[in-house]
C-alpha cells in the first residue's frame, strides 16, 4: 500500500463531514422524541468516519448504494439534507416524497442510487449499476455500503463473484460494527474466520482498517477506488467500527445487556469525531476556532433544514396510488 497521507484540505472536509453527520443525527435523536418522525430509524452515530472517509474520494456522478443504516452514506455523498429530514417527517418534499422514510433514502442527483432495509439486497443492485456503466462504455465507480451481517447473506457472495468475473468497478465497503441487531459475530460466523477472508476466497482485492480513524479509512479506500477506477476489478474493504445507540431508534440500549461490560465505553473513547478533531488540531490543520465555526455553520444548516421539513406539507390523499407504475 502506497503512503497515503490525507491532504489537509481533504482532512478539513472530512472533519466537517463527520461532524455534520454527528450533529444532524444528534438533532434527529432529540427531535425523534417529539414523535413526529414516525418511521424506523437506524442511527450511524459512532460509525461516521467510514462513510466520510470513503466518500471523500468520490465524484458527484460516481454511485453508491446503502442499506437500513444509511444516513451517514447519504450525507457523505452529498445527499440533500432538507430532502432527508422532510422524508423522515413523511412530507411531500421528502427525497422519496414521503413514501420511503429513513429506510429508503435516495438522491439521484448526487449518485445516491437508493437504500433499502432488506439486508444484502442493494449489493447486486450496486453491481448492476457498475455493470451498466461498463456496458454503456463509460465505466463508473460504484461503492456499495453494508454491515457485517450482509456478508452472511448468499447474495453477497453471488454478487461478489459476478463483480470479480466481469472485473467491474465496484468497491464493497463493510462496516463491521460487531452486531447484527443484538446478535454478536460469535453466533454468526466461526470465531477464527475474519470477514475479509471471504473476499480472499473470491480472489478479490481486499483490506481491513480501523473504521474509527478517518485517515485509515481514506487511505485504504483510496487504494481500492483507484484500482477499481483503473479497471483492475472490484475490492472488498472491512472497517471495524461501533454503533453507540439502539439498533433501531435514538436511545441508549445498555439495559439490554447484549454488549459485554466496558465495550461501549471503550469504543466511545475512540469516538471518530473526537479522534479526528484532536488529530487535526494537533497537526495544526484546524484550530479550535475553525471547529467552532464548523459547528455553528452546520447547526444553522440543520436549523434551516428542520424548519423546512416541519413546514413542508404532507402528501395529499390522492398521492396514495401515484407512482404505482412508471409512465
Amino acid at each position, binding site marked *: 500500500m502506497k503512503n497515503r497521507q490525507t491532504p489537509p484540505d481533504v482532512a478539513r472536509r472530512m472533519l466537517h463531514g463527520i461532524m455534520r453527520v454527528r450533529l444532524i443525527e444528534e438533532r434527529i435523536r432529540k427531535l425523534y422524541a417529539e414523535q413526529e418522525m*414516525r*418511521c*424506523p430509524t437506524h442511527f450511524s452515530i459512532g460509525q461516521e468516519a467510514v462513510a466520510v472517509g470513503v466518500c471523500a474520494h468520490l465524484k458527484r456522478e460516481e454511485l453508491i448504494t446503502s442499506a437500513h443504516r444509511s444516513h451517514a452514506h447519504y450525507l457523505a455523498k452529498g445527499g440533500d439534507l432538507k430532502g432527508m429530514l422532510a422524508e423522515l417527517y*413523511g*412530507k411531500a418534499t*421528502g427525497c*422519496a416524497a*414521503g*413514501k*420511503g*422514510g*429513513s*429506510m*429508503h433514502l435516495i438522491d439521484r442527483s448526487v449518485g445516491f442510487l437508493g437504500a*433499502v*432495509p*432488506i*439486508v*444484502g439486497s442493494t449489493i447486486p443492485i450496486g453491481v448492476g449499476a457498475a455493470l451498466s456503466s461498463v456496458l454503456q462504455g463509460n465505466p463508473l465507480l460504484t461503492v456499495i455500503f453494508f454491515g457485517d*451481517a*450482509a456478508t*452472511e*447473506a*448468499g447474495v453477497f457472495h453471488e454478487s461478489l463473484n459476478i463483480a470479480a468475473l466481469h472485473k467491474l468497478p465496484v468497491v464493497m465497503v463493510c462496516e463491521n460494527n460487531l452486531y*447484527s*441487531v*443484538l*446478535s454478536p459475530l460469535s*453466533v*454468526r*460466523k466461526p470465531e477464527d474466520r475474519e470477514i475479509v477472508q471471504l473476499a480472499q476466497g473470491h480472489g478479490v482485492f481486499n483490506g481491513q482498517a480501523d473504521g474509527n480513524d478517518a485517515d485509515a479509512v481514506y487511505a485504504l479506500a483510496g487504494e481500492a477506488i483507484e484500482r477499481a477506477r483503473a479497471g483492475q476489478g472490484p475490492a472488498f474493504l472491512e472497517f471495524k467500527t461501533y454503533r453507540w445507540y439502539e439498533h433501531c431508534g435514538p436511545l441508549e440500549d445498555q439495559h*439490554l*445487556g*447484549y454488549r459485554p461490560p466496558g465495550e461501549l465505553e471503550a469504543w466511545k473513547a475512540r469516538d471518530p469525531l473526537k479522534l479526528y478533531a484532536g488529530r487535526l488540531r494537533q497537526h495544526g490543520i484546524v484550530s479550535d476556532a475553525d471547529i467552532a465555526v464548523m459547528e455553528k455553520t452546520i447547526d444553522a444548516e440543520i436549523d434551516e433544514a428542520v424548519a423546512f421539513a416541519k413546514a413542508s406539507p*404532507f*402528501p*395529499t*390523499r390522492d*398521492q*396514495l*396510488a401515484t407512482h*404505482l407504475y412508471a409512465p
Partner: protein
Amino acid sequence: MSATASTRQLKFVQALNEALDLCMTKDPRVFIIGLGAPDPAAIFASTKGLVEKYGPTRVLDMPVAENAITGVALGAALRGMRPVMTHIRLEFAMLTIDQIVNQAAKWHYMFGGQASVPLVIRMVVGRGWGQGAQHSQSLQSWFAHVPGLKVVMPATPHDAKGLLISAIEDNNPVVFIEHRWLYGIHGPVPEGVYRVPLGQPNVLRQGRHVTVVATSYMTLEAVRAADELAQEGIELEIVDVRTLNPFDETLVLESVRKTGKLIVADTGWRSVGFAAEVVARVTERCFGDLKAPPVRLTLPDVPTPTTRALSNYYYPLVHDITAAARRLAGRPAKPAPEIKPEAFLDVPDPSFTGPF
C-alpha cells in the same frame, strides 16, 4: 378442542410464548431457529425466557442467511426434529421461497409420502410507525396458493396458543402468520396444552344479517364493527378464517346461506388475494343464496407508503366494514369519519387492546 372456559387473561404474544414453552417442555424434538430468537428482544418477546430455560441449542440464533436456515430447518425436520423458524418480518421469508415453495411444500408429495416435514415458519406482519413497503407485507395469499403448505393466521390470544401448538404438532410445513398489531391484545387463554385444530374456521359472532369472513387483524376490526352495528339492530356473523390453507369453506357457506350477504375482510392486497378465493367459493357453491354482490375489504393494490399521511388511507377501517354492512343490509349510509393526514392511525388504537 378448546379447554374449559378460562378466565385467565393473556396477551396474544404471551399466548404464543406459552405455546412455544409448553411444546418445548413436552417434546424434546421441538427447537426454535431464527435471527434473534434468543436475543434480549426475543422476537417482540414471543420467545422470551426460552433460551434461559432450554439453552442455546434449542433456541438457535443464526446469521443473516434465511434461505439456508430454511433448508437447515427442513433438513432437521426430515430427520424427525420439529423446528420452529422465526421471521421478525414476513419480508425476510421472501428470500426463502425456494425452500418453502419448491422444497418444503412438495417434499412429502414428490417423494411419494416417504418423508414428512414437520416445520413451522412464523412470520410477523408489520404495520404502523412507517414500516413502509418492505416491512409490512401481508402475503398470506401467496402461501395459501401453494398446495402442500398449511397457512395459519390466528386472531385471538386463545387461538394464537391453540393454533401454534397444533402447528408444531402437525407433520407438514405450516406458515404461521402473526399480525404485529395483535400482539398487545388480551383475552382468555386456558392453561396447559390445548389445541385449536388446523383447517377449521370459527364463528366468532353469530348474526342474521351479514356474513363477515375475516382474517387476522381484520377479525378484530370486524368485532368492533359488529359491536357498533349491534346498536343499530344489524347483526354481523363473523367467521374467523384461522386456517387459509387448506381452507374449509363449510362454515362460510352455512353462514351465507343464512344471511345472503358476504363481506370478506383480509389484511392483504385485493387482486388475486385470499378474499377473491372466498368470493369465488361462495359464488360457486351458494349462487342461489347470495342476495347482493359480495364485498371485498382489503388493502388497495399499492405498496405500503411510509408516511402516515398516506398510510392513514391505506388500511381498511372499522367504518369500511360498517358502511359495507349497512349497504348490504339495506340501511342508510352514515357519513364516514373525517381522517386528517396528520392523525396518528399508525399506532394501534389504545382504546382497543382487548379483551378480544
